[in-house]
């Protein structure tokens, strides 16, 4: 008993003594941030915007590695299979969860260490300005009728899931889903009045709302969007909904906790930089930061919801 305690004490002492030493060693080589998408896309721009601030806070250099394709699964796989040494970080968002729910990824988000969530891109429901609909209830009412209401989405992506979640809360409403694709293509389809409704990132919707070509009828996040102050959230309109593209910063499972913490702290410091937050806001993103331990239950909850919606798709 006494001996056991002694061993434990030595082990603890060793850990306590060596931990700061380890943390000081980190990073001794460049940290790779895997962007599971091409150069120039939304995720890439975000990570590269953060890069100099992160490098400063971390006290080491950062290399951005683009691994595009397979709807982000390729890059995520590259990250989950990497050595858990703290030198590989993945920046991904709700797409990781939808890919899991649709069985497109053979790993789980729990196979990663969730370092933190930081930066959110809000989502909005958009209709062409010629549309008679001004609220979610109105468009759901139309979707109960016999004429098809065409929803342009990227099948299996977050905009599709959002529409499905709204639809499920309106008895008898049924959209006709059409694959328009990502933001740019869905925007074109809205402008050409090819579709009756679509879900866009707030930043994508802003210029075409200001020009009067489309109308935003709901914000899908928990709060109203700073640059769309008049637009009520879906929750305010009586729908249970909290969906946004919130960036998750992940390391391979098994990464030493002190390194996870070191990167997490650096991210937190970077996100408190007013210069960075101003830049992000300018680009239509909402600066935010939550350490992994706080964010994990929310991510699990979101995944449970997404899994439920995915089950209805089968």
């Amino acid at each position, binding site marked *: 008993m006494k001996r056991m305690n002694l061993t434990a004490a030595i082990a603890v002492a060793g850990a306590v003594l060596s931990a700061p030493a380890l943390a000081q060693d980190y990073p001794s080589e460049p940290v790779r941030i895997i962007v599971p998408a*091409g*150069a*120039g*896309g939304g995720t*890439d*721009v975000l990570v590269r915007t953060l890069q100099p601030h992160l490098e400063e806070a971390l006290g080491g250099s950062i290399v951005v*590695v*683009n*691994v*595009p*394709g*397979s*709807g982000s*699964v*390729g890059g995520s*796989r590259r990250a989950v299979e990497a050595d858990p040494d703290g030198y590989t970080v993945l920046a991904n968002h709700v797409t990781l969860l939808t890919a899991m729910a*649709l069985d*497109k990824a053979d790993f789980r988000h729990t196979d990663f260490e969730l370092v933190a969530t930081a930066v959110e891109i809000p989502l909005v429901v958009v209709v062409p300005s010629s549309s008679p609909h001004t609220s979610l209830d109105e468009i759901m009412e139309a979707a109960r009728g016999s004429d*098809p209401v*065409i929803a342009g989405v*990227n*099948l*299996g*992506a977050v905009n599709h899931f959002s529409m499905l979640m709204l639809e499920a809360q309106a008895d008898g409403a049924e959209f*006709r*889903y*059409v*694959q*328009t*694709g*990502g933001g*740019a*293509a869905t*925007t*074109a*389809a809205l*402008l*050409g*009045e*090819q579709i009756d409704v679509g879900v866009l990132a707030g930043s994508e919707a802003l210029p075409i709302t200001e020009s009067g070509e489309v109308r935003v009828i709901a914000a899908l996040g928990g709060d109203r969007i700073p640059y769309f102050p008049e637009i009520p959230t879906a929750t305010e309109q009586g729908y249970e909904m909290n969906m946004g593209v919130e960036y998750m910063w992940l390391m391979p499972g098994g990464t030493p906790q002190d390194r996870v913490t070191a990167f997490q702290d650096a991210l937190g410091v970077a996100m408190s930089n007013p210069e960075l937050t101003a830049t992000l806001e300018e680009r239509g993103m909402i600066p935010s930061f939550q350490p992994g331990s706080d964010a994990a239950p929310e991510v699990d909850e979101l995944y449970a919801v997404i899994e439920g919606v995915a089950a209805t798709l089968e």
Partner: protein
Amino acid sequence: MDLLQPLMAALAPLTLFYIILGVVLGIVVGSIPGLTGSMLIALSLPFTFTMEAVNAISMLVAMYVGAVSGSLITAVLMRMPGTAASVMTTFDGYPMTQQGKAGRAIGLAIVASFVGGIISWIFLVLLARPLSIIAVRFTPFDFFAMIMMALALLVVLSRGNMLKGLIAGFLGMLIALPGLDPIGGNYRFTYGIDALNDGFKLLPVLVGLFAGNQVLAEVLRPGGQRATAGVRQDLKGMFMGLRDFSRHWIGMIRASLIGTWIGILPGVGANIGSAFAYSIAKSFSRQPEEFGKGAEEGVIASEAANNATVGGALVPLFALGIPGSVIDAILIGGLIIHGLQPGPGLYRANPEFVETVLASVLIANIVMLGVMYLATGFIARIASVPTKLLLPGVLVLCVIGSFALANSWFDVGVMLAFAVIGFAMERKDYPLAPLVIGLVLAPIAETSLRQATMYTGGSVWPLLATPVPIICAILTAGMWYMMFRVRRVE
């Protein structure tokens, strides 16, 4: 459209530098028989990753302008077209050289190239924006019809054996199938290989087909050195006088208009444009018997038209996201790599970008004129350097370029495989252009047709009963008829 602002943007020092670099590289590579503009642009693409999108695309477009122009030098001096774009130029350009009029032939060809470039540029500026505005109203059925038109034209316009063109086109479409299904997002034909989840990426395929293939071809060429007769030509008389203009302006404008129109048609490029203009110039000529023996009109028709296809081909690229030529197909890859979504939304989402690139096309043509005048003699000497000396460098660039795309060795393997496929195809006289166009257009065709039926709940009736598909069908029939007539004349 306000022209001044994009022009100033394109004249920014760094952008201007890339345009000049692009034109010079284009001219040099275009002038070397065996190296093509497609190869240059496919190889350069990975090196633009770190550049700003505007500079990257401006440079690639400048290479396009340069390559189509540079190929005339060796076509006239050595009867070896630098690229397929100048095949028709050899017919009259080389006889002029034999008659001691090389300088004059090159001078006429340069001015014709410039005029062709400028006229097609005017159409590009006039058409791209209005077309992109109308284009958001085009339904998926309309897009499907336009792509079917492109594929139908490609087969009939591909020179040589039509059946082989058709087979190459189908092969291209097959290569497009593995990977993510563009509608449902499910993997198909991946045979459980993770690396195939994205299918065959465009860039390694293109680099293999156009650059890797060339390395193989040169290495395996029987008999070693290509005979490059060291023709030291007197390049006097390069500058056109006013009298020449008054004599040739009609021919130049006619060929430029033909070239622009052929360029706009999706999928067909400079070689078809110049062949078409040449045939028509011959049929309008008062001395058709002179064609093939050193007719100035022939050189002018070929060179004005092939340059005019460049501006024309960029119209559907920027307005609709449909490539107007093989090089455009590579530019589509460039846009995607730089996070720009090709399609009707491109112009409106990034007006400054598109307009600056349009201004770059104008500047590239002017730079081309200057470089060609000043450096033709010098370039002619570079062009006679044995291609073999350049091959190790080209091979290294092929590997780096394919790897850099996604940091994946699989892509390098794809590049090597397509180098072999391209080599085998050319050995057996299968054209590569239909393969590339098929590869690029198949996903757009599939997406638009499947989208279209999602809109209508399964019906394909609009394909037979709405204006755009009907117009496409009529245009296709008309072009088929004309092409068959031209073939008979030839």
